[in-house]
């Protein structure tokens, strides 16, 4: 184990990996229960449910769907709605009559938007899933088909993620920044705004309209280094597309394959800031819900894809963790002076029971964004785990954090200057959770079993 670093060096280097489309309840909701003696806002011991809308053709007599355990490593399948107008329904329970069973561009004003000052009840996940399923598949789902949206995974089903969470520190109130999709939330991770954009599509707009300053440019201004490591065989970086107007001249120099992360970690040559992207297109390693097979007849899988993105995510996270824990170079980057943050971009329409609250708009003077959204409320919870030898095992952080807590922490730790937007200006930093006076052993105490075979496949 490298011996010269102290706790003051814990944030000399930061590695962040961002996975896809899971709520905290969905993948970590059963991490701890009341018997574990921890204050943890999970699902164990709670009577959680969502109402079944009266217009459901099947199972409406049951009135509610109680929260349960998933039996399929590809759940929810088909994927749940995640755009702003779907999230409105999920959080506030309301769906405009004319938007029922509509998806994508078929959804029209007022886009299921809640009334001003409405408080999320987290009671529209079943209604939205039935509506989305019907819009996608062309028929209403049976009870068993839509009840899956009210399920989550156990630690035994996700041994890598859960094992790391238990060995290190988990944030149980980490909120996504935008109640919508991938691109906006990833943009907030790295720029504290999405320049008024509220949905991914059409993607061509990202090549011109997201002109916000990025953390990468700020790092360069302060003499710091960075790379974006992309899981093979993914052929592009979403970060590069999202920030194309600002980063187009760096796509050929700073965006590299993940195998280079493994080499850099082993050699002690990691940059100051590393962002890791899982494969999110074909060959999924991102924990994303089912990625489309159910919509099409016959075998349309391609050889690149794992049997489930959950299992692909577990395998990739293990690869990341092994590279991190094996980083013992001295001098250079190593586990003592490098902190790993495991995060998600958005919950993707998977159920969570904790309502998100109000947040300041990134730029209060800016006009409303797409759909008239003023960015005055955040998205809902996602998982977040901090990995470092300076973290006490089994830690749970109960305070509210958000994606922009990363930028806020880097600004503070590395003296990077003024806030990017009002959003990171108001975000809580997390440097204070690195509390140990002495570091933990080099293997970090990580013990776990093999990932399970795909269930229900």
């Amino acid at each position: 184990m490298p011996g010269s670093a102290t706790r003051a060096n814990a944030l000399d280097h930061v590695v962040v990996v961002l996975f896809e489309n899971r709520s905290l309840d969905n993948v970590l909701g059963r991490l701890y229960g009341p018997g574990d003696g921890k204050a943890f806002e999970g699902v164990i011991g709670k009577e959680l449910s969502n109402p079944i809308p009266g217009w459901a053709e099947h199972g409406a007599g049951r009135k509610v769907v109680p929260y349960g355990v998933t039996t399929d490593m590809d759940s929810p399948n088909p994927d749940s709605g995640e755009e702003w107008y779907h999230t409105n329904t999920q959080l506030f329970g309301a769906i405009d009559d004319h938007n029922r069973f509509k998806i994508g561009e078929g959804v029209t004003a007022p886009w299921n938007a809640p009334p001003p000052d409405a408080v999320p009840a987290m009671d529209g996940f079943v209604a939205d899933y039935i509506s989305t399923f019907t819009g996608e598949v062309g028929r209403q789902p049976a009870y068993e088909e839509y009840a899956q949206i009210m399920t989550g995974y156990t630690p035994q089903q996700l041994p890598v993620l859960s094992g790391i969470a238990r060995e290190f520190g988990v944030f149980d109130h980490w909120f996504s920044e935008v109640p919508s999709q991938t691109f906006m939330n990833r943009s907030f991770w790295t720029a504290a705004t999405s320049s008024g954009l509220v949905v991914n599509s059409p993607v061509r707009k990202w090549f011109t309209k997201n002109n916000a300053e990025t953390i990468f440019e700020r790092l360069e201004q302060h003499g710091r280094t960075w790379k974006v490591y992309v899981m093979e065989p993914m052929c592009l970086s979403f970060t590069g597309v999202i920030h194309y107007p600002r980063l187009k001249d760096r796509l050929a120099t700073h965006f590299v394959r993940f195998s280079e992360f493994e080499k850099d970690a082993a050699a002690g040559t990691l940059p100051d800031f590393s962002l890791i992207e899982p494969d999110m297109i074909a060959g999924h390693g991102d924990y994303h819900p089912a990625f489309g097979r159910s919509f099409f007849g016959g075998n349309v899988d391609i050889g690149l894809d794992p049997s489930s993105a959950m299992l692909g995510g577990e395998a990739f996270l293990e690869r990341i963790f092994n590279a991190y824990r094996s980083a013992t170079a001295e001098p250079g980057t190593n586990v003592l002076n490098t902190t790993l943050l495991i995060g998600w971009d958005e919950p993707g329409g998977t159920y969570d029971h904790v309502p998100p609250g109000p947040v300041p708009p990134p730029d209060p003077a800016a006009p409303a964004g797409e759909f008239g959204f003023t960015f005055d409320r955040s998205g809902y919870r996602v998982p977040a785990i901090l990995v470092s030898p300076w973290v006490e095992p089994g830690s749970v952080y109960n305070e509210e954090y958000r994606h922009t807590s990363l930028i806020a922490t880097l600004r503070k730790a590395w003296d990077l200057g003024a806030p990017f937007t009002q959003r990171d200006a108001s975000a809580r930093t997390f440097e204070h959770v690195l509390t140990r006076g002495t570091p933990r052993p080099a293997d970090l105490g990580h013990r776990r079993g093999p990932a399970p075979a795909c269930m229900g496949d």
Partner: protein
Amino acid sequence: MGKALGYLGKDVAPGIIEHARQMRVKLPPQLDDPSAELTPQLIVEVIRDVAFHYFPQLVPGGAGDSH
């Protein structure tokens, strides 16, 4: 296209192809051939060919593998 790519891929693929056209990037001829059979594997390969123009270090065996 939707048969070959995940949800995000279905969002991204048309956008990056459109941008590549605007940037006058040479595209595989199948994209302009309405009679071409776009198999899932072919679509993935097409997207890769386009994307690697933007991200050359992500090419297997390319600069990104030489370190």
